[in-house]
């Protein structure tokens, strides 16, 4: 198998809130034959600034991220939303900047969401991983609509022994996180995630899986507040064989 020299872009949420997701991504990528580097120049991709309308700061952070990531063969992100920002929005940010546009486009072209990369580019499947549970899957919006991530995580998860699936009603419906939306309009966000939590509970699943920590924190936080027993993981944690660790909001 050809070794791939890839950079992991950790995402600020994973860095601060749930480092296990970053380590799970490294473990799965290494199992798939990648040589993984975590470039130290990275912080945040700039999505909060971009979505707030603060284009100058978004451009400054995008430049920093491009500089940190461009030396590598591929850039892997454990988040559809951050990968979508780099892939779809960086070239837009530098639309009228002749110097930075080609660099943004080059980085965009080699940026992948981790599960899409493992499935589509590496053609890899988890081996010898087993989880005895029933899971339901939420399709996070940016990954789904900006990057077409739908079948890839499901294909990877189906290779896990013992894992069964319960379909989630409205699996493609936004959970109400929306980055800063959830704190700018908390009451509306709560109404949306309240319905989502009810739908998750109604599946009878033990586990809630998704590909974005923001959405997962929103849904898990609501499930916990309403006293639900459903446990939430980033799908890559299970895929990397780290499904026996604490779920989101459980003590290690």
């Amino acid at each position: 198998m050809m070794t791939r020299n890839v950079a992991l872009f950790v995402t600020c949420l994973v860095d601060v809130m749930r480092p296990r997701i970053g380590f799970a991504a490294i473990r799965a990528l290494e199992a798939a034959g990648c040589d993984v580097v975590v470039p130290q120049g990275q912080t945040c991709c700039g999505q909060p600034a971009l979505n707030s309308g603060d284009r100058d700061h978004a451009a400054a952070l995008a430049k920093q991220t491009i500089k940190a990531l461009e030396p590598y063969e591929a850039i892997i992100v454990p988040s559809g939303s951050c990968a979508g920002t780099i892939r779809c929005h960086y070239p837009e940010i530098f639309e009228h900047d002749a110097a930075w546009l080609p660099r943004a486009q080059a980085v965009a072209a080699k940026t992948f969401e981790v599960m899409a990369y493992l499935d589509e580019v590496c053609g890899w499947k988890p081996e010898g991983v087993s989880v005895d549970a029933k899971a339901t899957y939420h399709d996070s919006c940016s990954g789904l609509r900006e990057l077409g991530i739908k079948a890839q995580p499901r294909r990877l998860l189906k290779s896990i022994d013992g894992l069964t699936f319960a379909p989630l009603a409205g699996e493609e419906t936004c959970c109400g996180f929306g980055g800063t939306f959830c704190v700018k309009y908390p009451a509306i966000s709560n109404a949306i995630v309240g319905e989502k939590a009810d739908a998750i509970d109604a599946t009878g699943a033990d586990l809630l899986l998704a590909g974005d920590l923001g959405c997962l924190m929103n849904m898990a936080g609501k499930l916990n507040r309403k006293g639900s027993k459903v446990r939430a993981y980033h799908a890559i944690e299970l895929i990397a064989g780290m499904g026996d660790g604490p779920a989101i909001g459980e003590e290690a």
Partner: protein
Amino acid sequence: MSGFTDRADAALADPILKIAVERTAGTAEAKRGIAVAAFPDFDAARIRAAAIKDHVIAHLGHYLEKFEANAVAAGAKVHWASTSDEACRIVIDLCKRANAKTVARSKSMLGEEIGLPHALAEAGIGRVETDLAEHIIQLADERPSHIIWPAMHKTREQVSALFKAKHRSPHEEETIAAMAESARRQLRGEMLGADVGISGANFLIADTGAICTVTNEGNAELSLVPPRVHIVTAGIEKIVPSMPHAIHMLRMLARSATGAALTQYTTFYTGPRRPGDRDGPEEMHIVLVDNGRTRMREEGLAEMLRCIRCGACMNHCVVFRQIGGHAYGGTYPGPMGSVLTPVFDGLPKNRDLAHACTLNGKCQEVCPVRIPLPTLLRGWREKSWREGLEPTSMRFGLGVWAWVARRPALYRFGTGLAVRAMRLLGRKGWIGKLPLAGGWTRYRDMPKPAAQTFMAQYQRERRK
């Protein structure tokens, strides 16, 4: 507190509204899904529909002149209005010249946009709404809450009570048939006695000067056939080059709006009554309204002019589904309204609209003319930021965060501190109350972060 937030809070507190919105939008979503699945290559049809509109918008002057020449040749009079006030003035003048005491109006979002109901009332001209839902709205003295179902926010029970209070001879039984009969008794005489009919247009067909109007109640015909004078008000972006183009757009419109293959009534008409015609108006006037549309083309909102007013974006919007249409505060609700309202009513009063969106992209996915609604909303956010309309706390907070995020070493130090501080607030794995994130913890818990950030753990492991 902004007007939007207050209206949204009021909507969230209304359990009947929630039921009413969910019932109609949920049904529309399901029916659209079935209709689109049965359509051979709906995506190709969307690409074609967007291309037709883009072509027309790029050559708007050409097609409008062509339409005017053909409409005039068919005997209609064409008027041009650049603002909503001018449009209303033209319509009121025409009504006065026709000595109109009452006009029979057929639902038109453009009419709402330019404030025509209000202008008619000010001029002392009576108005009878031929669309049943618009009649309900008129009785309740409210504005439409949806562009396809103006009264979607009302339940049958609420409508029944309204009819009982306001109709001359109201229904006794609370059945749909009895309520419809009550409305019929109230409205039929007024409709047939109206001096002027006013309707909107779904499509203006350039190469024949024809107008296409679709309804599900046949009510547009009541405003365009019996009255002596018929006035059409239409936005200039409603133009299509020819009949085949109109037909293509109709196929997209009906399926996207209600999931039907075609609307119940689809009428094409050209000019007033000709010698030998058995019916039709003696005079026909077409008022073509700009009201900010050419400006939209120049200001990066050209793609919004593709909109064919189907309502699919709002039916599928998680935010609209929670708060309904009135919370948006403008004529047009939902994602398309959030793009349009600042055009008509200014950004300062409406900066909330662009933000009250999770950017989940569902609206763009279902839009039959592929309007990049999230991108256009992000554009309003950027304009709002450039013009200093964003709250100081937001500007300051984001500025500090960006300053730190551009200094990776400082950022690592800061995130390390933040993690430790957050862990002090946690009980078991969760934080129930987080300072500065009250919006989050009022409604849900925050997971407690791990003892060290990823970067700190990664560095430590590499040193081993």
